[in-house]
């Protein structure tokens, strides 16, 4: 089989061809994040240094912004970096250009969910989606149901590590199966279905 020149040249991880970029990605995300001025970013890196989680990220937040506006859609959305954002807003309050980076991260998470290209079997989006359907079902969060469902979807064996903590909390009545919930769940659900 003949390898094309482009295949040969892109075998390394350091090359990206313009044709493989999604040129509208930056604008889509900026719009999704309520007109954030992504293109005003001066790449100063304050966000990365302020972020308490950047040490565990594959890309620093600054790099994420650079990649988003350059159109590296696949790389950004399939990576776990955005899911490590804990929404602490430290970057947002420090950004000298007033970019609400946390909201940009939210927009990226939503875009990933919508495009179904978030990292597979990665716990954070699974918890988010479990939480989402739990609230939709009952209107409030019951931590027992939330966590049980989450571990069922993610990895039931991991739940074992939390069993003793769960039991202790249960004994202290900080977890309960019978917490009073909403009375008109149907109406609440229908609101979300509009």
């Amino acid at each position, binding site marked *: 089989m003949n390898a094309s020149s482009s295949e040969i040249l892109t075998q390394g991880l350091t090359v990206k061809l313009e044709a493989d970029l999604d040129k509208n990605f930056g604008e889509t995300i900026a719009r999704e994040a309520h007109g954030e001025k992504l293109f005003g970013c001066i790449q100063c890196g304050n966000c990365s240094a302020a972020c308490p989680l950047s040490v565990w990220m594959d890309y620093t937040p600054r790099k994420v912004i650079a990649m988003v506006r350059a159109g590296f859609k696949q790389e950004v959305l399939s990576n776990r970096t955005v899911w490590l954002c804990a929404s602490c807003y430290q970057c947002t309050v420090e950004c000298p250009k007033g970019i609400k980076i946390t909201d940009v991260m939210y927009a990226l998470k939503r875009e990933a969910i919508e495009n179904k290209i978030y990292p597979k079997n990665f716990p954070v989006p699974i918890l988010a989606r479990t939480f989402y359907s739990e609230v939709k079902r009952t209107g409030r*969060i019951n931590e027992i149901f939330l966590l049980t469902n989450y571990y069922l979807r993610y990895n039931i064996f991991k739940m074992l590590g939390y069993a003793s903590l769960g039991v202790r909390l249960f004994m*202290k009545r900080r977890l309960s199966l019978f917490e009073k919930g909403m009375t008109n769940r149907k109406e609440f659900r229908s609101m979300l279905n509009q």
Partner: protein
Amino acid sequence: MKYLYYPGCSLKSSGKHYEISLLAVLQKLGIEVEELENWNCCGATNYMSINENYALEITARNLGIAEKQGGDEVIVPCAACFMGFLKTQKYMESESGIRDRVNQILNHSGLSYNGKVQIRHPLDLLVNQLGADALTRTVEMPLKDLKVASYYGCQLIRPYATFDDQWNPHTMDDIARAMGATPVDWPLKSRCCSGSMTSTMTDIGLRMNYVILKEAKSRGADVIITACPLCQFNLECFQGKISRKLKDDVRIPVMYFTQLMGLAMGIPAKKLGLKQMLSPSLVLN
């Protein structure tokens, strides 16, 4: 003046002792609260990650209930709920498209939100409205010689700093001082506790909590006080695990600021939810 009260899911379960102690303290101070009828979850960070419209709608529903129920101010003690409420309020205030769409949906349930209800955190109420002096006057057992590290976490003051200094928050320190204790100055008072990451990326979550516990201890604190159920849960419930895993004893009492106040104000431990704590809790002699 009647205050509306939105507890949120945590204060009904893992953060039960926050609710118990908060209500006890407010009662002692003569502040009446009325729980929102049929409130729903605020959606926390998860709804924002999945669907922004839904996130705003479900929070606006609570605000709509508050307006319907009457009353000018709603007390929101959970930091995540508090921030979510503020965020929804700001979006509905500044973007007419969002305001109209959300209200259209609320209308189906006979609700609407017009920005009338003010969103307040108990710290705001206690420190900025009642004032430290008034709190001091209620103290029966001053917490003399107690060194307190106030831990504010993230969403109480970020991105919106409505009642405290974003860069150097002080309201909990003010309360500690009013209770006769000595606040500890430390640099991690608003560093993130990792939120729900203790259940998802456990390793990262535990490490993030470790640095906070470690620093508070090394600055000589006897107790950490918080105002967020997730912060309190993480710092309290995982400290044993953290100490074992990272082979460093970082155990330290982690309480809600309302529990600390209750102790100083002479409220019996039973009414402060102290029995519901896992970590060594602070009982005064």
